[in-house]
């Protein structure tokens, strides 16, 4: 607790007489200030611990058990992980996750191209930008339905348009080996919109003097873009890339709507594979072990992101 009030070496208020919980008013105020962060943090922290923090550890623990969700839990040690590492379905999911990761990285690139294309001041450009951004606002269930309809190999608009040009696109739309690519292309739609808006904001807040100086120095178009513009956009690139990667690892909604992991589990990713094992096959322990692997992958990117943020704080 704070020191006794001493009138000799302070210029603060005169001695206080009111006593609260055996403290004078000054002590009471300091006490309240000390306890305040706890009070302000309590609701958020309690909920966060109950629904986010604690479940992570509980999942890790469940991953060492065999459990169907309602009966008794049985400790099996590393068995779930041993099973996982010889399960072909696990490797299919892993490969698909890698494919997602690589292909969705087109989103920042495409987003930058569209942003550069739209970064003009002409009549109506504002509404055009908003409309380009629209896919990001729509939920992924609807995006999945939209693309299921768009891709429909018998009646969809895509196949109809290609028919006009006498091109048969149906192999791409029906081949089971391209199914994952189809889903990823659908996910690029909202993701590109998101990256585009980050780049548009980045372009708007760019240091105009640097750009002008480079122009006066006669920088050609290529070196202008790669040496002046893109380096200035690196914070937008960083966020776009991290969010895109995390989104790719999290991909679930579109797969659930468009393919449900099929055909024959060919479009499965870790997130959906885990859901299937836990909810449909009642293999909670096995499901939890998949979730732990997914978390480990994610932690690589989370820690990268956190290092950048926390560095700015110190």
């Amino acid at each position, binding site marked *: 607790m704070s020191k006794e009030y001493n009138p000799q070496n302070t210029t603060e208020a005169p001695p206080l007489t009111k006593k609260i919980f055996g403290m004078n008013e000054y002590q009471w105020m300091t006490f309240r200030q000390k306890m305040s962060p706890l009070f302000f943090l309590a609701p958020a922290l309690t909920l966060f611990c109950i629904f*986010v923090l604690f*479940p992570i550890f509980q999942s890790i623990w469940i991953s060492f058990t065999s459990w169907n969700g309602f009966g008794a839990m049985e400790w099996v040690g590393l068995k779930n992980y041993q099973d996982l590492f010889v399960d072909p379905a696990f490797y299919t999911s892993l490969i698909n996750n890698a494919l997602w990761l690589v292909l969705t990285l087109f989103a920042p690139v495409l987003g930058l191209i569209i942003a550069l294309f*739209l970064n003009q001041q002409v009549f109506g450009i504002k509404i055009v930008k908003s409309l380009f951004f629209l896919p990001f606002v729509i939920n992924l*269930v*609807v995006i999945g339905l939209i693309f299921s309809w*768009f891709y429909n190999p018998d009646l969809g608009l895509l196949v109809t348009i290609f028919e006009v040009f006498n091109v048969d696109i149906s192999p791409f739309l029906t081949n089971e080996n391209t199914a994952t690519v189809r889903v990823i292309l659908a996910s690029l739609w909202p993701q590109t919109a998101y990256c585009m808006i980050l780049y548009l904001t980045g372009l708007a807040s760019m240091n105009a003097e640097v750009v002008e100086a480079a122009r006066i120095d006669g920088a050609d178009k290529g070196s202008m873009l790669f040496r002046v513009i893109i380096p200035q956009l690196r914070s937008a690139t960083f966020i776009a890339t991290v969010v895109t990667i995390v989104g790719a690892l*999290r991909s679930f909604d579109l797969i659930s709507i468009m393919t449900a992991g099929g055909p024959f589990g060919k479009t499965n990713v870790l997130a959906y594979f885990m859901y299937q094992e836990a909810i449909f096959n009642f293999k909670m322990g096995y499901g939890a072990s998949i979730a732990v692997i997914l978390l480990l992958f994610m932690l690589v990117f*989370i820690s990268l992101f956190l290092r950048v943020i926390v560095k700015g*704080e110190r």
Partner: protein
Amino acid sequence: MYPAPIQKSKLGWRIIYRISVPVCLVLWLLPMVAIVLTSFRGNADIISGNYWGWPTELQIVENYTEIFNPSRSPMLQYFVNSIIITLPAVFFAIFFSAMAGYALSIYKFRGRIALYTLFIAGNFVPYQILMIPVRLLFNQLGLLDTKFALILFHIAFQTGFSTFFLRNFIADLPFALVESARMEGASESRIFFGIIIPLIRPALASLGVLLFTFIWNDFFWALTLVQSDAARPITFGLQALRGQWSISWNLIAAGSIVGALPSIIVFFVLQKQFITGLTLGGVKE
């Protein structure tokens, strides 16, 4: 400005640019255009396979009233559920995270950076690592398959991101404001409600818009925490109705548009707040 203003280039380029912008826009929104057009079509066209030709009849009103007809589909219920879930979840997530953000930026207690880091990290964990324990917990509380479970979970989960978001705003406020208020003898909660909250109102609006779309668009937790029509939000409802409507693509299309519309409206009305939120919710460098 980069690229160079189009006004400075040759007339030919200017014309090409003015034409290519709307063309690209239509191509970009083509999947969307397809579903909107389909939602206007009559059953006769759908049955005869006339999906993209000139429509023989327009059934705009019929299609949209059909999906909202309670005796034909529970769509209306799903829609109401989504509202009942989203609004309180957004409110409390903002409220609790404003408090937490205040604590993390005004008080210099030990471990505050660790706590702040924890909130950000929590926002990025895969849902699957939480799924089994959260379901188990709600089951034990007897809350599985209720709207309340979804509200509670969304508040808890979104608190991580929101605290991160608001802490940055509050940390940017001049600390002298808080100090002088303390000198005047204002209590800590008085400072929070009377000074901080009014000052961060723009940030609260941005966050609110973002959270609205995040929670409205949630599918995973709806899928794993609820089952009955009484609790299903629209995202999960749409997936269920798709099976029921099977090949009535005009109805699926209309339902999809209704499911997407609230987020779209919120975005267009509060566009400035939305984009500010999106960019500031990232990293400050």
